[in-house]
């Protein structure tokens, strides 16, 4: 008994002494091994600059599980101070749930803000007008095509100017080379890919380019939606894109990592990371001379125009219930620095949001990304709203029905609308 008392007293003394030298701690959550690696130097910088201890909690899990864990903790009030959000679509819902702390003032006052591309600034603003995330990286997708395959068959490699031209080009490829002409991710197995990497690129260039109306309701009954589904239908019905792999698990493995390098698939949508990680120098099966062999087109609009759709890639946000909100905000600005952006770009292959990155020596080494970075100047975006995650799932299901040839474009639209209404209630859909 006496020993315990003495031990306790010693501990109290120790803690009293050490409290004087005790540094504040902030917890940062990150996921995906590459993201964790990319943040290492930034974490060190934050620790040095503000004299705090940064505890990085790594949630090495796929997006869905990471989000589940993060949301559970946010709901219970036990989440880390700073965290990255795997997809833009999740942000609006988290704002509505009151999980994120607004950073509008701080971000506008921060000197890096002025150097951001407009599209990044716009994407960061939530429907209620406040900014809740640091939009430091952009995800930009284009159509990647095999120049060599097209050249050999004498097919034009010019940028297609409309949906019809795009489809015609794909049909030409099929006819003259026998290879699949164009891949748009579709189906349930691809998860949110059907929406993220396919559908949304079509929508921005369509007759009804936005999915959210002024009231924040989801406008899914527009003609553009139907027409976008029709593009899918034509690709599928005319056998211009591989369908079998998309119906099974790991649907991207066969088309992107086998068919495309082998030239059996001539074009596919992909993100800026594809040049480096899927088919380039960091890939396991690189295509030799990839920048010469693989070219890029932007997704054309329905009847013209070029649309470079940008999404927020891994936006960072602050836990509204954090004990150290002010400190977290300062750390957040650090994450927005050009150095961090370049570090991410090198490891994950997304595009830095800051125009200044173009002058950064390390970034210039990523030659494949430089032109895409410049293209972000004219980036467009989809206005985000609560419920986008459900929309993405609805699109996945609608395209699944198209893959199975069970319906047509109008039917696919109905599937989407019905699903969203069922899940979120009738009031959510216009």
């Amino acid at each position: 008994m006496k020993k315990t008392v003495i031990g306790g007293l010693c501990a109290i003394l120790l803690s009293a002494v050490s409290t004087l030298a005790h540094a504040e701690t902030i917890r940062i959550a990150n996921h995906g091994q590459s993201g964790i690696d990319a943040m290492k130097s930034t974490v060190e910088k934050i620790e040095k600059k503000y004299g705090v201890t940064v505890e990085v909690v790594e949630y090495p899990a796929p997006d869905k599980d990471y989000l589940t864990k993060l949301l559970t903790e946010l709901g219970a009030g036990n989440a880390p101070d700073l965290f990255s959000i795997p997809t833009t679509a999740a942000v609006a819902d988290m704002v509505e749930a009151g999980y994120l702390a607004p950073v509008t003032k701080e971000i506008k006052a921060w000197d890096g803000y002025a150097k951001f591309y407009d599209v990044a600034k716009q994407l960061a603003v939530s429907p209620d007008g406040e900014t809740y995330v640091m939009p430091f990286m952009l995800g930009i997708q284009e159509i990647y095509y095999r120049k060599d395959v097209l050249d050999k068959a004498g097919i034009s490699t010019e940028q297609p100017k409309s949906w019809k031209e795009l489809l015609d080009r794909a049909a030409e490829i099929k006819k003259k080379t026998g290879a699949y002409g164009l891949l748009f991710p579709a189906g349930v197995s691809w998860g949110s890919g059907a929406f993220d990497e396919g559908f949304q690129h079509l929508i921005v260039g369509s007759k009804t380019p936005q999915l959210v109306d002024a009231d924040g309701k989801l406008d899914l009954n527009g003609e553009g939606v139907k027409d976008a589904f029709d593009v899918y239908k034509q690709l599928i019905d005319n056998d211009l894109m591989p369908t079998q792999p998309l119906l099974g698990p790991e649907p991207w493995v066969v088309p992107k990592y086998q068919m495309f390098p082998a030239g059996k698939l001539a074009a596919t949508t992909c993100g800026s990371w594809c040049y480096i990680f899927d088919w380039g120098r960091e890939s396991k099966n690189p295509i030799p001379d990839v920048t010469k062999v693989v070219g890029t087109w932007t997704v054309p609009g329905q009847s013209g125009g070029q649309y470079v759709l940008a999404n927020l890639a891994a936006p960072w946000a602050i836990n509204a219930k954090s004990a150290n909100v002010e400190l977290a905000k300062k750390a957040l600005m650090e994450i927005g620095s050009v150095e961090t952006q370049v570090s991410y770009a090198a490891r994950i292959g997304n595009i830095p949001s800051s125009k200044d990155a173009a002058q950064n020596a390390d970034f210039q080494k990523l030659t494949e990304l430089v032109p895409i970075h410049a293209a972000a100047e004219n980036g467009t975006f989809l206005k985000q709203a609560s419920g986008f995650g459900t929309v993405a799932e609805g699109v996945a299901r609608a395209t699944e029905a198209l893959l199975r040839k069970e319906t047509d474009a109008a039917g696919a639209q109905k599937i989407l609308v019905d699903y969203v209404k069922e899940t979120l209630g009738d009031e959510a859909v216009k």
Partner: protein
Amino acid sequence: MLASPNSPFERVTELSMARNVHERRTERQLLLILLPSLALLLAFVIYPALYSVYLSFTNEALTGAAALRPRFVGIRNYARLLNDAKFWNALLVTFLFVVGSAVIGQFVLGLISAVALRRRIHFRRLFSSIILLPNAAPEVVAGFMWISMLAGGEQATLSRIVSFFGVTPADWLQVFPLSMIIIVNTWRGIATAMILLTAGLSTIPNEIYEAARMDGATPSQMFRRITLPLMMPTILLYMLISAVSTIAVFGLVYALTRGGPGGATELVSIYIYNQSFTAFQLGYGAAVAVVALLISLVLGIGYVRAMKVEV
């Protein structure tokens, strides 16, 4: 205690009273040692289950507006799910899945293994270790292993095996989805059946078989008239346990088919996941779970009554 009794009557009374007191004390002691288990189960299993029942009447979600201000919505979740054809489909699929893999597949193969392993042959330890392997593999890994086996059309391992024998491979998970997942789940659970049934088999004394053999009984007769009836209690215990475990299977099937194609393999657990966790809706998911639980309960009680098992 009482003073020494004199008459036999008093003696008996004293003994019986002592036993009553003793029994009550024993009961209390028994309850005492059961207490830690009870406490843990109540806190970590029963409470969350009851809370889920409560959630099923709300529109609680992990994110979105409902996360901030959940509302009590009465039986709206239940109405929605009972009206959903996909829910009933999920029940049917789950039923077929349980019957196919647990009641038939695992049981038959487990029984054969158990019976075969009783013979004095070589390599018994090797055989039983190999048969155990599927159960030892964690779900995530088992999922990838079978993706490698079944997906990808011609590249799938199964396709290669089959074409070796001259059969044209198909896209297995697309053409035979339900059969495939039944096979995969059977593969996974043979060991459980084998272990339980081996134990059950070992309760049957060899003498009975000897006697039967001397009477000229054939192996199949011995099996039908001796083995099966005497093993009934084990078999029923196995059925109960495996049915419950199979209903809860999620990860393995989700990794392979995500519940597709077109809901052909959408088990109740996957239906819950697809319906609720894609949109992070806890309320709806809880409602489906509760209904699944009720149905299992009804089936379980009916099953036990029908078999008249003594527990």
